């Protein structure tokens, strides 16, 4: 039981994700990002499950908490699974230009309004981060308390959040006028001037991955493959 939970994620990591990363030539970046993202949550998992999980083999005790071998095994399993998830998604994110993804979704029939929202998000997030930094600096200059008691810091939430959101609401005005002036509301089909490069082999690989996904889901539901804990 304890072994089964490791095999499948390890297989996916070793058989699909790592070769893909090597082919794409970004193994180092991929590993770095995945470790950074997974580490905090893995530490949390380790503390909670090693100390909190009941088990027969007690390793050591800290205060009222006893560390068990079963907890260590469970933590390792969850951490491995999360790491594989992070790796797979990072491989996708680093090799796929988000704008290309969104444009291709629209080409395949997703509503242009939806794809506009997705594409605009790509610009909006860094812009909002920039704005948040500006606001934070401005409020600090006006004496925002970031060091004091919890109550004082809680009172800082509104000065930080408020300008960002009110600014965004005002932005909506200008942007929707600009869009409407460019026939955003016009019904009917759109013509995209760009299509992502595609090949026979990529198409075959996509179908293969889709089939693998279906097989995985069916296998898990019917109990052929081990269920996750």
């Amino acid at each position, binding site marked *: 039981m304890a072994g089964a939970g490791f095999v499948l994620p390890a297989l996916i990591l070793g058989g699909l994700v790592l070769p893909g990363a090597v082919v794409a030539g970004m193994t180092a970046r*991929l590993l770095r990002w*995945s470790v950074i*993202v997974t580490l905090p*949550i893995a530490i*949390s*998992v380790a*503390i*909670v*499950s090693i*100390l*909190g*999980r*009941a*088990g027969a083999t007690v390793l050591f005790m800290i*205060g*009222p*908490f006893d560390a068990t071998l*079963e907890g260590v095994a469970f933590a390792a399993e*969850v951490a491995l699974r*999360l790491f594989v*998830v*992070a790796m797979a*998604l*990072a491989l996708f*994110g*680093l090799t796929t230009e988000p704008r290309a*993804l969104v444009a291709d979704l629209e080409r395949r029939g997703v509503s242009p*309004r*939806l794809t*506009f*929202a*997705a594409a*605009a*998000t*790509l610009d*909006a*997030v860094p812009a*909002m*981060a920039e704005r948040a930094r500006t606001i934070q600096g401005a409020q600090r200059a006006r004496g925002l308390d970031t060091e004091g008691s919890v*109550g004082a*810091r*809680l009172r*800082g*939430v*509104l000065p*930080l*959040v*408020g300008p*960002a*959101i009110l600014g*965004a*609401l*005002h*932005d*909506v005005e200008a*942007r*929707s006028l600009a*869009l409407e002036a460019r026939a955003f509301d016009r019904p009917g089909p759109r013509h995209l001037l760009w299509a992502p490069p595609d090949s026979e082999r990529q198409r075959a690989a996509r179908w293969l991955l889709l089939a693998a996904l279906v097989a995985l889901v069916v296998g898990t539901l019917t109990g052929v493959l081990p*269920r996750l*804990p």
Partner: protein
Amino acid sequence: MRVVIAATATVVAAVVGVLAVGVFEPSPNPDQLPPGANLFMFLLAAALVVGFVAYAAIEWLQTRRFESITRQFDTRTIVLIPLAIAINVVLGQTVASALKVPLYLDSIGTILVGVLAGPFAGAATGLLSNLAWTFLFAGTPFGSPFAWPFAIVAAEIGLLAGLFGYAGVFRSRPNTPPGKLLAGIVVALVLLGALVWYGILPHYAKLCAGQPGSGGSVTSGCLDLFQPIGSIDPVFLVVAVAFLVLLAVTVIVLAVRLVARRDLGVVYVTVAGAACGVVSALIAAPIAAYVFGGVTGSGTDFLVLVFQQAGSDLRTAVLQQSLISDPIDKTITFLVVYALLRGASRRVTVRFPQGERAIGTVEA
């Protein structure tokens, strides 16, 4: 009318699903997750979809159009959604890092869209927000590969915020006469009490704080508030006291604001936020337990550990943790949005599809 039928369809679908699969069988091994936990999640999500389809189908039959749904997605809303997602992604990080307070605050944008544009737009924002977080920003500093499992929770928050906005919960009610104010507070307290009593406490019923450190095998379950304090482990005592102090401070701050402004709206928003928090905790906890072994990587994970040590199995411990932190977080977020909407210029807010309904026509 359509809403009633859709709600009925959702409930029926959930009940049929639960009956068909027999989800809530007690797990044979209390140490592991009940096999039905993830299934229950799935059923709840499926029931939501069924409810939505029923709603859309009935509207189609009645009017041959999807007017009430598409109306929520006008140009203005479509423009607001990306900004709202950016608010979700960025503000959570900024507030947490700048002020060092243990709040998620990652649903301000979702709630904002829900209130201003409507329930469906809110739900769409929540969904898109968590999907973008995972798939559009993977590999960048903003990305988080662990957000997508919670997309359904974000959708639920947006949906509820939209419904509350439609019901006018976010309207400002300044200078309410004292008698009415008092009555409102009493009703709110009763509602909150009922929420705590029926929504939260049952999940702690099996928790026996008297037997810590016994490896989590508590057999005689009890929630005895009056047991001698000496028999409780100091760790739990500290947690309990800290929690009570936090609660008391919140109530006092609220009361002061209430009396100073005599604004009954605050009371409504508080109740709505707490209700939303309880629902999201119920949906989110199985996901956290199943996918992440019960943690979210934030400070609240310590509570999971404490509850587990007190004898709950993992899933129950996660639920108990969520039921403490989620209502508090959502209540604060709702209050923040409420304060912002009062601060925003009416010229801006009333132009959104649900804006006038949500803000009300009374001058603040």
